[in-house]
């Protein structure tokens, strides 16, 4: 299998292509992003400007910004940074019924130590259960989509309810990279379709749905902006972990996103075993390009299993029990043909069609050009 000469992207990744030097288009996307969002002095200046804007917007309120927290290192460290820059964040956690004890304890420790208020949004578990089962039955690769969409929707919901204009998120393209759209593209329209077709009729009453019109309303009328501090600031996951452990008695939980048990199942069991998808290739490549690890280290990490066989079997059986799937149900789901996100209707086509005209709008919704926009320019340029 062909592997990018600069990172560890390989031919298992949809839409990948290589130039004469064996450098992949994904690598070029990563380089473009790194150039668009420089760290160092320029990044710090951009960030400081954002901090000022947040403080100004929040001066008559108890909070300057909303910070989504999962108990993982990225979001926990974000609270630490917010404190360092004198911001007054409201921490928000979405509870989908799969938070691990380590995650819950981490949120507790960090918010308590820093004296940060916590707001939680709990989705009715029967709705979560029905949505996750529907995604599995639909044969979707990224079955944790309902959680991802709900997290984003919750940030907007809480920001609007409490009257906060800025949402900070712990995304960092330098350590995560860009997952191919075939694996992860998602929107509310598609979620509704999949739930209607594969769900068992549980009505979605508490599930937070951020539809396109709602997002536009929040951005244009309410002026809510989505900010990713790690795009600007020098952030090294390993160093951040050490600091969090030292200052907050924060606890490491192993793999990327393993703080949530369903996410762990999706990453470490469902994707690799049913689809041959290893999302770590994207994450590790990004880390190689940002010089957090060497290419050899990345290749060596890819040889490592996601977790021990025993741990994976336990995670699977826990998920099966939590979703009320019998062995027979699970077998049926497992042996059904795998699909991808474009096998079901979504707003993707519409967004691509409108992309150029939507640019001014997008720049008002986000404080940055979203990676998807850049990805469309870079990854699809050749076709």
């Amino acid at each position, binding site marked *: 299998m062909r592997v990018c000469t600069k990172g560890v992207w390989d031919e298992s990744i949809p839409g990948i292509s290589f130039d004469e030097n064996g450098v992949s288009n994904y690598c070029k996307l990563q380089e473009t992003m790194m150039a668009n969002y420089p760290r160092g002095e320029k990044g710090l200046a951009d960030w400081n400007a954002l901090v000022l804007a947040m403080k100004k917007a929040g001066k008559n309120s108890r909070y300057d910004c909303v910070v989504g927290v999962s108990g993982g290192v990225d979001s926990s460290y974000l609270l630490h940074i917010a404190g360092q820059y004198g911001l007054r964040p409201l921490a928000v*956690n979405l*509870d989908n019924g799969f938070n691990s*004890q380590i995650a*819950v304890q981490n949120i*507790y420790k960090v918010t308590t130590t820093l004296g940060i208020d916590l707001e939680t949004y709990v989705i009715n578990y029967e709705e979560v259960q029905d949505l996750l089962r529907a995604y599995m039955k639909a044969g979707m690769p990224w079955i944790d989509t309902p959680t991802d969409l709900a997290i984003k929707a919750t940030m907007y919901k809480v920001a609007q309810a409490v009257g906060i204009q800025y949402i900070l998120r712990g995304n960092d393209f330098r350590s995560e990279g860009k997952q191919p759209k075939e694996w992860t593209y998602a929107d509310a329209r598609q979620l509704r379709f999949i739930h209607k077709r594969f769900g068992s009729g549980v009505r979605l009453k508490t599930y937070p749905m951020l539809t396109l019109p709602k997002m536009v309303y929040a951005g244009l009328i309410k002026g809510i902006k989505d900010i990713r501090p790690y795009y600007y600031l020098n952030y090294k996951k390993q160093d951040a972990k050490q600091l969090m452990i030292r200052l907050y008695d924060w606890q490491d939980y192993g793999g990327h996103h393993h703080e949530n048990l369903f996410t762990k199942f999706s990453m470490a069991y469902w994707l690799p075993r049913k689809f041959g998808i290893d999302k770590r290739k994207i994450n590790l490549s990004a880390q190689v390009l940002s010089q957090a690890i060497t290419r050899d280290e990345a290749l060596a990490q890819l040889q490592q299993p996601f977790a021990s066989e025993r741990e994976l079997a336990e995670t699977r059986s826990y998920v099966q*029990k939590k979703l009320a799937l019998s062995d027979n149900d699970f077998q049926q789901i497992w042996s059904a043909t795998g699909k991808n996100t474009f096998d079901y209707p979504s707003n993707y086509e519409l967004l691509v069609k409108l992309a150029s005209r939507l640019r001014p709008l997008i720049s008002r919704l986000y404080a940055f050009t979203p990676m998807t926009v850049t990805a469309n320019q870079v990854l699809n340029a050749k076709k």
Partner: protein
Amino acid sequence: MFRPRVIPLLLLKNKGLVKSVKFTNYNYLGDPINAVKLFNDLKADELVLLDILATKEGRSIDLGFVREVGDEANMPFAVGGGIQTIQQIKECINAGAEKVVINSFAVNNPAFIRAASDEFGSSTIVVSIDIKKKFWGKQQVYTLGGSRATGLDPVAWAQQMEANGAGELLVTSIEHDGMMQGYNLPLINALSAAVSIPVVAAGGAGQLTDFKSAVSEAHASAVAAGSLFVYHGPRKGVLVNYPKNHELVNLFSQA
């Protein structure tokens, strides 16, 4: 080192975990099994799970649910809700529960406690007593999730239940439930003084020192709490938590 037991008290409504304020305003907290798993990982001493709709709906707590709790909980746990027969108790025990909690049916049929205790031993039978002051009146025992006044005097009732073989009393002050402002210490004290079986204080814990007061001032044998273990901070974020053993040892050893 010996210290009083500290027990998360979890309420089940339909399939969800809820928390009340004064036995009303039930707030949805999420999936009960995840909470049980979290409390297990946090090494809680013991759990109590009560199905608050069971009696009203004329059924007993779902055995499938009790079994699932048993799968996740390594610590002893008690279950309650609509229990009215020896058979139902047997099924709950077989499903993994160590104790059963009986409330409304004990009032309707006090002799049942005798029969249950004879069959399973008193340590299996917990009688739950919910108490509040009736308008203009004095403290009395309520049943059916705090909706029906029985006219029973709490102290006399506690003594009767002890005489009938109850192994433990779970005493909740309805007015203090969910307020997080401390237990009803005079009430707990009155009942602790009246019986020699363990009295578990419930209703009102808002901070760890409330546990200490319940034990040292009101002589409770153990303490139970809901809000304190499921809410976090001024906005009452839903976040399962439980103190570390050394914190509890310190707490109770302070003079």
